[in-house]
């Protein structure tokens, strides 16, 4: 049996005074690929940010464990160093700092391997300022290169597929497979569409609605089919409903 890498236990979270996560339970095993589907504002990105320790959110109840150790109160940098990484849906621009500078700072490989990956992915990004005037696709690729540079154990992809054309999506999926999946890195894919799932084939599919994970199912195709047919609201009444 594979070891549990991330465990989230009855997590309740507030942001700007409003309860966003209302008791989330989630477990991800080492080397496992899971996906998290859900409508807009259901709490998916908040969950990702909370796992990484964004101080903007307040945990009111519940705990987060990584490799058996409680990390609920850890700073973001400590979580990153433990091996948790995420790609941002809308990463901020950092003016005056070159992408290559950041890569060199964060890379546990001393910048060389990630630089090679960056060259292969988007060679023109290296000498540009981080996320300044990057196109939607360039931002996603820059995020992907950064998480690879961190040599992570778990990567949360927050809508890495949105804004990518089919060619870039295929390219991103191939890199994720080669640099992460094949190296037994665990993955949580937050997505709206099923396209990337066809490339990465998740072991478990979760559905989040109104701050709760209401569905946990092995067959992603089945879940996608139900969502397509009934929409997320009707997921609540689905027979696959998580206990």
């Amino acid at each position, binding site marked *: 049996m594979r070891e549990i890498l991330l465990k989230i236990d009855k997590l309740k979270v507030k942001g700007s005074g409003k309860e966003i996560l209302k008791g989330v339970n989630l477990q991800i095993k080492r080397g496992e690929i899971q996906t998290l589907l859900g409508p807009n504002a259901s709490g998916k990105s908040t969950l990702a940010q909370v796992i990484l320790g964004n101080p*903007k959110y307040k945990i009111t109840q519940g705990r987060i464990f990584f490799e058996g150790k409680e990390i609920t109160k850890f700073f*973001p940098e400590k979580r990153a*160093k433990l091996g948790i*990484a995420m790609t*941002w849906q809308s*990463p*901020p621009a*950092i003016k005056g*700092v070159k992408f290559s500078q950041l890569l060199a700072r*964060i890379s546990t490989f001393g910048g060389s391997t990630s630089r090679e990956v960056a060259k292969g992915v988007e060679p023109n990004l290296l000498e540009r300022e981080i996320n300044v005037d990057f196109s939607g696709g360039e931002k996603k690729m820059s995020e992907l290169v950064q998480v690879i540079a961190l040599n992570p154990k778990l990567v949360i992809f927050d809508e890495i597929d949105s804004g990518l054309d089919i060619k870039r999506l295929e390219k991103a999926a191939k890199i994720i497979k080669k640099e992460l999946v094949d190296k037994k890195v665990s993955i949580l894919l937050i997505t709206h569409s099923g396209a990337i799932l066809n490339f990465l084939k998740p072991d478990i599919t979760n559905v989040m609605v109104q701050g709760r994970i209401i569905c946990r199912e092995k067959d992603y195709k089945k879940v996608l089919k139900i969502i397509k047919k009934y929409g997320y609201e009707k997921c609540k009444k689905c027979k696959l409903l998580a206990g």
Partner: protein
Amino acid sequence: MKNVKSANYWQVDHEVRNIFGVKGITVLPSPRAWEKFGWTRKWFEKKPKEGYFIWVKKQVDFPLATCITIATPKISQNLNNLLVIEKGIKAKAIVTCNAAENKLCGKHRAKGKLILKDNVSLEYNHFHKWGEKDFVSLDYEFILGKNSQLLYTYQNLFPPENLQLKTTIYSNENSSSKLNFIINGLNSNIKIQDIIFLKEKSAQGIARLRLVGRENSRIEAISKIFALAPSKGHLDCRGLLLDRTAKISLIPEIVCQNKDAQITHEASIGKISEEELTYLRMRGLSEEEAIDLIVSGFLNI
């Protein structure tokens, strides 16, 4: 010293430690230049006590280097510097003024006149590094001849307790000046005044200020452009406040006396974005490292 490719001037306290010119470049202490070249009296106003005189008459392919240091406690320097570059020459200067130790309580006052004759191009890199108890006052005037170009960068990441910085540019026909002021305030009182006079037609001037306010710093910057002829100018003043004990005041002023001139300005003071900070921390940088990286980007003009 044959074949040495440099022209330099090095002064410690009041003593000239090294002075070296090459064919086509005269380097002298200012008092000596006052005596030797009568025409310099027009620029020095009165007989100088100390400082350097550099007269560039020939194109060279290496930078001019000067270094003025304070090394003795409570020393008080009073410098008059003059740099004259003859027509059509392209030059680069690396100018350093510093304190050898941190708590000398020294004074460094410098008045400078920099004369760029017609068709001159000068890149002037000015670095300051002071001790935390020093007093520094700088008053520099650049006179730009026809078609001349100036790129002036003043960088001070180690400020004294008190810094007064005055820079004035007189721009003649078709000349252009770009001024960059990169200043880090920490336990210091800083007053900056830069003025660009666009005197003749087609003159251009840009001043960029990047000011960082750390603990117990007060920074007051007045940045002005006067357009007296059909010309173009722009002020870009930005401040970044890193501590609640810091204060930055930015006053851009544009004055137009010619209907065909075009002058603009932008000014902003902000703090470090929490989102940027969190983003970098999620990449494994500590809060301090993330702030340093963001500030280095802000200061990178």
